[in-house]
């Protein structure tokens, strides 16, 4: 039995315009080093009419997260609401999670001492890490813990066109379903047959 909501990201490519609002909001909210992007926006087929579209991606918080399976030191843990988090104090920065990840979510800042990969950093769905909730240490290591504050992850909240959706799967799919239903037709304002029967007025 699933007692908790299953948290998911969804990026509506019909709306994403590569404004990078999500990625910069993420960078800024968690004060990330410049070299890494927990969230990135990519445009495919730049400039080709009919083929160009953009998409924002970060950690998708997979159900059966490959990163978690491949981590040699088992620094990952999956919350019951499906958010995949990791412990930076355990992580050794080997990068296996990156090879296993279908989305390129894990990020590796340069480590000051050796110039090689430091510990992995990735989207936490604004849920922090295993440290004390909203402690200074948690903020330093993982950034804000907005979920604990009862807030929406910052990327989706600041998405300029509301392309990026986040939340439990039912809410997300409800929103998207409504959009798809409306697409190409407009929101149905009168019941079927109304305009045929009585004209447009």
């Amino acid at each position, binding site marked *: 039995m699933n*007692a*908790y*909501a299953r948290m998911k990201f969804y990026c509506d490519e019909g709306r994403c315009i590569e*404004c*990078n*609002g*999500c*990625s*910069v*909001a993420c*960078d*800024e*909210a968690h004060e990330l080093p410049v070299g890494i992007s927990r969230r990135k926006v990519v445009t495919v087929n730049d400039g080709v009419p009919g083929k160009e579209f953009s998409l924002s991606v970060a950690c998708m918080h997979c159900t059966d997260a490959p990163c978690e399976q491949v981590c040699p030191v088992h620094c990952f*843990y999956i*919350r*019951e*609401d499906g958010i995949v*988090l990791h*412990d930076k*104090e*355990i992580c050794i920065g080997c990068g296996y999670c990156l090879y296993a990840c279908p989305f390129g979510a894990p990020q590796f800042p340069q480590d000051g001492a050796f110039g090689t990969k430091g510990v992995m950093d990735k989207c936490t769905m604004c*849920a*922090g890490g*295993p*440290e*004390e*909730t*909203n*402690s200074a240490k948690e*903020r330093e290591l993982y950034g*804000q*813990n907005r*979920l*604990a*504050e*009862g*807030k*929406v992850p*910052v990327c989706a*909240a*600041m*998405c*300029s*066109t*509301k392309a990026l959706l986040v939340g439990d799967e039912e809410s997300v799919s409800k929103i998207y379903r409504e959009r798809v239903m409306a697409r190409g037709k407009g929101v149905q304002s009168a019941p079927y047959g109304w305009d045929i029967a009585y004209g447009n007025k």
Partner: protein
Amino acid sequence: MKQKHDQALKSRVGRRSFLKMAGLAGAFGATGAFASAGVTRAATEEEIKDPFPGSKKIKTICTSCSVGCGVIAEVQKGVWVRQEVAQDHPVSLGGHCCKGADMIDLVRSEVRLKHPMVKENGKWKRISWDDALDRISKKLADLRKTSGPDSTIFLGSAKFGTEQSYYFRKFAAMYGTNNIDHQARI
């Protein structure tokens, strides 16, 4: 290592519960995490919910483009600690492009101009405000006397608030010239 992991697991339970049981989870998470540590006090509910206790939320408007998106600035003890989401703003609905999402860095950017400076003999030199303003106004007054007020041009901008641009126009008018302009010609 093992102990730490257990702690993590415990606090995880608390965090997880939060989504459904707001108040309860706070206490649970905190006590769970610190039961074994023993030296730290339990976190207050305030701390769990609000990482910046006592902060104020100030409403303002993004300075990037003319859409006029709402910005909510979280300010703690006079420091802008966090940019919040203006979800209920009627135009932006909380949305920001990358420029708007980074408004906080406009203020705290490290490469801001920090004090008045003057270039003398090809070198930048720090000076005081009084010094700078005295020297500028003396030079302006001289030029105004010798070459007339039209020897000066004032370039304002859309960076101004409405009041500031009004006063800039007024300033030029009282300086005695119509040589004033900004970007928007049409």
